[in-house]
């Protein structure tokens, strides 16, 4: 069971990371949420009967965990997970590093804007960015695919506005 669980998480670790980053803007909150998602997945794993796709189950557990997650108050360090990751890259002035840093800035900005959306909007937009069809998103969210479509249109508009305001074009 442990091996199967580990294999599933290794295969889908991107989902955990992206959801945790969409719901936690600070490093410590991100670590807590990522860990809590792992705990919740482990606890519900014995009851996973394989009726739904593994990814659907992971999205459901991870999103439900993120939606009820509360940030710990009074953090002193406000490092974003991106900043921490960037600090690991060597600043040797090469064009490759400059490219990676610009890329990282864009990722950082995207998550920053997603973090400003309402909680249910974050869930919908991240499913959309993950390439999920309206039907799959509807299945994960428990709303109709028509409504997913309507919501996605509105959220994308708001996301683009936020990105423009934060100078996305200049990166």
């Amino acid at each position: 069971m442990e091996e199967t669980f580990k294999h599933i998480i290794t295969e889908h670790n991107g989902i955990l990371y992206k959801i945790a980053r969409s719901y936690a803007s600070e490093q410590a909150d991100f670590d807590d949420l990522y860990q809590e998602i792992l705990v919740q997945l482990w606890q519900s794993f014995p009851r996973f009967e394989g009726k739904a796709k593994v990814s659907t189950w992971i999205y459901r557990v991870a999103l439900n965990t993120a939606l009820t997650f509360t940030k710990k108050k009074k953090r002193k360090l406000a490092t974003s997970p991106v900043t921490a990751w960037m600090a690991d890259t060597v600043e040797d002035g090469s064009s490759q590093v400059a490219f990676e840093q610009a890329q990282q800035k864009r990722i950082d900005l995207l998550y920053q804007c997603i973090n400003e959306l309402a909680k249910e909007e974050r869930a919908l937009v991240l499913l959309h960015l993950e390439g999920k069809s309206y039907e799959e998103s509807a299945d994960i969210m428990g709303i109709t695919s028509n409504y997913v479509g309507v919501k996605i249109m509105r959220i994308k508009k708001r996301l683009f506005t936020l990105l423009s305001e934060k100078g996305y074009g200049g990166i």
Partner: protein
Amino acid sequence: MEEFDLGAIWKDSEESANAYYEGLEENVVEIARRQSSSVVQRMKRNAWIELLAGVVLWAAIFYWFIDNPLFGYLAGFGLVLYLGTGFGLYKMLMRFREINSMNVFDSITAYLKLFRKSYRRAQLLMYVLLPIGYILGFFMGFLAAGGTIEKLQEPWKIVLILSFSVLVLAAFIWFTTRKYMYWMYGQYIEELQEIHDNLIEEEFVQ
């Protein structure tokens, strides 16, 4: 700003995801086995503390008041309260074991139901049952201190003392309970209600 840009950026964060996961991979099962810090887990923990505190309280009451003429009433009242709330809580928490595997809308609806029930239960316990227990305890203390029913010839005195002390107690309970209940349930109810309302559009919900 085309949409494929966002898709590409989103995909790029996969690299960060893998880098982060590499640091955890060895201990991923160990981390997953850690104690949950979710609100449901917190409720379970509180329920256990309440049940254990109840046992300790019972042992103390049994030890000190076994000979009191009102012991039977207190015992009956306490037992019904203890078993009723304990069983209700256990049943409720068991029903929500699969709450996180449900789809998001059903899960939020179930969470709201759980929090509202717990909120009402706490309200009932704090605002109604606690003062009743207090009044009963008052009379037990009165009798234990040598008071008799005959001495209650001027019941207005008792009523006055009781009313005043119940008022003071109620004000204290009201103030502390409000803070506790908001920390425990209120903040979640508010936030989840908003998400729930935003996901509802009559013609769209499945």
